[in-house]
């Protein structure tokens, strides 16, 4: 009986590994599957049925996600090729500043990043804030700025309808050092200003004090209206905290599976959102 259950568990884990690697969900995930196999097959007999059922549940969840991905791919195809016109024309006035968070490992595929920015340029987005935790995109700053700085760009590589001309784009490059570390630097600025001289009045700091201190450090860009996350999970990975108070955050999936139609859909959905800002 024990032998049969172990056999079943290893078949399920092998199938899970196949699904994950086949779909290309990232190099790291095959490692955690192997960890599972190591940990669980050698686990105690009385837990093995529960572990088996846990893997079955997650297998079912994975199949549901795969089915969702297939539907999204079909939807994107229909939108990109004009069969579905619900999301056009786009009211881009509401998206004054688009933020994009990219997982640092995925950001190393600079051609994928360039293709994404090509699409955004074709849609008409003018100002983009690019964030990746480790600053990989900062290293490609010159390449990207130069490519998107001319007003009319050639469309040979683009699969987008050639009558669209790409828009000139402005970029801001942000990484983890512009997040919490920047607030610490601003805190030091405020400390120097008010606490070094023993006699000055020490005010209770407000949001305005923090904003001014950050402006002194060179942080002058506005808050993004909409934030796209390209990565395995819906997590903003340390994007500067004070800049996403009311930002709509949308998870777009892994960068290499980006879809033009879904970008249109996400922007369109954002233009329909009504915010109360708490009141």
């Amino acid at each position, binding site marked *: 009986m024990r032998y049969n259950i172990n056999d079943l568990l290893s078949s399920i884990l092998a199938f899970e590994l196949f699904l994950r690697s086949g779909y290309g969900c990232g190099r790291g995930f095959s490692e955690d599957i192997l960890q599972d196999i190591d940990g669980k097959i050698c686990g105690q007999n009385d837990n093995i049925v529960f572990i088996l059922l846990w893997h079955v549940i997650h297998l079912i969840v994975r199949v549901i996600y795969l089915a969702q991905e297939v539907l999204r791919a079909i939807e994107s195809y229909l939108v990109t090729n004009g069969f579905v016109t619900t999301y056009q024309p786009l009211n881009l006035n509401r998206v004054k500043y688009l933020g994009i968070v990219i997982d640092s490992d995925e950001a190393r595929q600079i051609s994928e990043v360039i293709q994404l920015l090509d699409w955004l340029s074709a849609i008409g987005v003018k100002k983009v804030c690019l964030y990746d935790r480790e600053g990989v995109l900062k290293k490609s700053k010159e390449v990207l700025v130069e490519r998107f700085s001319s007003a009319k760009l050639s469309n040979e590589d683009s699969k987008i309808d050639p009558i669209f001309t790409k828009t000139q784009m402005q970029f801001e490059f942000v990484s983890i050092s512009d997040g919490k*570390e920047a607030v610490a630097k601003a805190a030091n600025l405020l400390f120097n200003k008010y606490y070094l001289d023993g006699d000055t009045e020490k005010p209770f*700091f407000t949001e305005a004090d923090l904003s001014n201190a950050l402006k002194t450090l060179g942080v002058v860009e506005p808050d993004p209206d909409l934030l796209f996350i390209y990565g*395995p999970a819906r997590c903003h990975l*340390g994007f500067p905290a004070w800049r996403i*108070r009311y930002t709509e955050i949308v*998870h777009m999936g892994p960068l290499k599976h980006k879809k033009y139609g879904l970008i249109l859909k996400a922007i369109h959905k954002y233009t329909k959102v009504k915010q109360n800002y*708490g009141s």
Partner: protein
Amino acid sequence: MEGERPSGVIGRLLGGVNRTMRRLLFTFMSSGPIPQHIAFIMDGNRRFAKKWKLEEGAGHKAGFLALMSVLKYCYEVGVKYVTVYAFSLDNFNRRPDEVQYVMDIMHEKIEGFLKELDMVNRYGVRVLFIGDLNRLDEPVRVAAEKAMEATAKNTKTYLLVCVAYTSSHEIPRAIYEACQEKSGLALALNQNGNNIDGIVNVEDVNDVIKVVDLEKHMYMGVVPDPDILVRSSGETRLSNFLLWQSTNCLLYSPKALWPEMGFWQVVWGILKYQRSYYYLEKKKKQA
């Protein structure tokens, strides 16, 4: 009368079956990683009331019942810290009668909670009210402080209720507290005769305050960062909640309005967390 007794029995039987099935599912799910801390933005009470054509304020009452269920499921599955966004500093901009209504509900529920202290202490729940409590009405603030004091010794599970809270208030306040602490240290240095005139050495000035100092003084510095941040009613923004603490946190936005939230949303949230667990742990280690 005769007809009521069988349905009472059937009701209890079904309830028992329901509870057993739930506990079984939670046991299967515990074979994988269970989040230590889940945070909830309780959004959608007013929309719920409008949807079901209820009187104003009934949405908040329904929301409270949903909160109790969600807390029960979280603690049953093994979550140690639960944070809820009960009232934002921005919510003070609402109509005064609505603000007063929410304050009255909070007061009523905290007083009700204080009456059940024995049971609460038996379960080991520690309650913390997070935010600028001075902005609350006097009776609510007093009741909140009493509740915090009464449960201070509990350590099994934690319930953090964010009232009069926004990250935009929390972060500058943490800077202020850190400055106060550091200036106290500078004064102490001064008294030891190492520096003159209360001025800290210029070389030391640049790095006086570090990120860890700020995190120590955050309202939420008493608990670990959340693993999942759930916002009900399908909205995808954080609305000034736990912005600093959500660096490596999975964001989940179920479409259900807050009073409709329950068992399946908690289960699905935890399953999503388990799917992303290794990726998020890798990101935490890289920090």
